[in-house]
């Protein structure tokens, strides 16, 4: 027999048996919960990015609806409005949209069959606002009125409020789902600890009667389940990261997931998952083990 084998024989055995048939199931359940939690985190980040993107787009632009007066053609009214707005401080660019573009925008509301040439379609002016000190709708309205134009400015503020409200709601729902999954993971680990203690009742009782302190026994279970949950968390996080990477590769914001634009940096959000799973498991296992050991007194 080699010296190496001899040394191995003298190595003290762990206080708890190394493996249990249920350990595999627990790793699978915790890994699945971590996978779902990480996906939720990625979805929250992506929806937040999407909302910010839309808000930035809307705050940087305004649309002006120009209604021509009797003595003026729609084209000249739109051109005059664009020229007026281009001179307003805080406006970077103002461009009258062609008649076809205005009709294309309104067509979906009236149906393909409608003959738009008979309708007094208002002309639109697309305004790009200066990033710093953008002009507000009131200033633009006053400038248009001063030039005798019948026009109204839509600075998208109504839509922005809706988007902000939606984004905030999505964030809160995401966090609630995340908290729910973390709680479920804790409950699963607590249940597994209880089952683990029941299965190793003989060991716990011998340790207890041999003078082991309650905290000592609880620590054994805490370490066992924390390690198991951390490994499960690693699997779950890796699964979620792979799925996130696939979604990103398949198009990111402009492809498969246009409303959830995932960035490569978002994938870093899954890295704390193994640690978080280990911590949740450690706390759940310790509390459960302590309450059961107290029952032995």
């Amino acid at each position, binding site marked *: 027999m080699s010296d190496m084998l001899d040394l191995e*024989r*003298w190595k*003290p*055995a*762990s*206080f*708890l*048996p*190394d493996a249990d048939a249920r350990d595999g199931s627990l790793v699978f359940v915790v890994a699945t919960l971590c996978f779902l939690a990480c996906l939720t985190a990625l979805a929250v980040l992506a929806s937040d990015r999407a909302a910010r993107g839309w808000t930035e787009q809307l705050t940087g632009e305004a649309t002006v609806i120009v209604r021509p007066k009797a003595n003026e053609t729609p084209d000249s009214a739109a051109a005059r409005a664009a020229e007026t707005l281009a001179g307003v401080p805080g406006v970077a660019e103002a461009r009258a949209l062609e008649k076809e573009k205005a009709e294309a925008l309104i067509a979906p509301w009236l149906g393909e069959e409608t003959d738009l040439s008979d309708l007094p379609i208002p002309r639109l002016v697309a305004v790009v606002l200066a990033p710093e000190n953008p002009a507000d709708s009131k200033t633009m309205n006053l400038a248009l009125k001063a030039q005798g134009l019948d026009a109204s400015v839509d600075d998208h503020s109504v839509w922005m409020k809706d988007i902000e409200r939606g984004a905030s709601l999505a964030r809160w729902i995401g966090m609630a789902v995340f908290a729910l999954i973390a709680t479920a993971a804790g409950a699963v680990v607590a249940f597994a600890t209880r089952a683990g203690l029941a299965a190793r009742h*003989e*060991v716990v*009782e*011998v*340790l*207890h*009667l*041999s*003078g*082991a*302190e*309650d905290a*000592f026994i609880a620590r054994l279970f805490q370490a066992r389940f924390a390690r198991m949950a951390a490994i499960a968390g690693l699997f779950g996080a890796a699964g979620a990261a792979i799925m996130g990477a696939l979604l990103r590769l398949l198009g990111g914001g402009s492809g498969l997931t246009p409303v959830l634009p995932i960035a490569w940096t978002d994938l870093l959000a899954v890295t704390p998952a193994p640690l978080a799973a280990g911590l949740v498991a450690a706390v759940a296992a310790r509390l459960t083990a302590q309450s059961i050991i107290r029952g*032995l*007194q």
Partner: protein
Amino acid sequence: MSRNPLPEGAQDIDPATVRFDDVSMRYGRAPETLRDLSFSLEPGSFHFVTGASGAGKSSLLKLIYLAAKPSKGLVHLFGQDVSAVPLRDQPFLRRRIGVVFQEFRLLEHMSAFDNVALPLRIEGRKPDSYRQDVAELLTWVGLRHRMHAMPATLAGGEKQRLAIARAVVNRPDILLADEPTGNVDHEMALRILRLFVELNRLGTTILIATHDQDLVARSGMPVLHLDGGQLTRLRAEP
């Protein structure tokens, strides 16, 4: 060495290792298993607890090794009222008590060596500090050649001797044994009894629960006899 939770001078007030004052015990709402027991065990004494099955022998031992609480009366260990010992200090009290269980309670995932070393590891001792002690103890119980064997591969008598080695490895003040010869043949029973006598000569208080009248008669040690949960006589044999 185990921590002693006794207050200063407690040993002087009550020198008994174990003292029961009018102790009764019941499991849940069942009738009392033990009724109005009063006795004491002096340090270094050797006693048997006898009685028919269900007389309360194991329950009496449980009260001493703090696995059960009395429903009435006071249990004193090493001069200390057990009910007054805080929960956090009870493990240190348990380390002064060695227990040999009827069904051995060896840890199946540990070798014979690791089973014996268990109480020392719980106390925080490092392998280098106890390796020699454990090996000597295994020699004393005749199991040195099986020190790396797993409990499942040991015979009944070997398991019993291993359980005794584990119970005494940290030099407890009192050794309790519940039917230690119940699963072994006559020759092995006498060998085990000799181990207990040797331990007693080294100063350990011994209390053995048994229904083996032959063993009791051969030892000539005093007997606590239980009948229907009551201590009917405290006598010396033969």
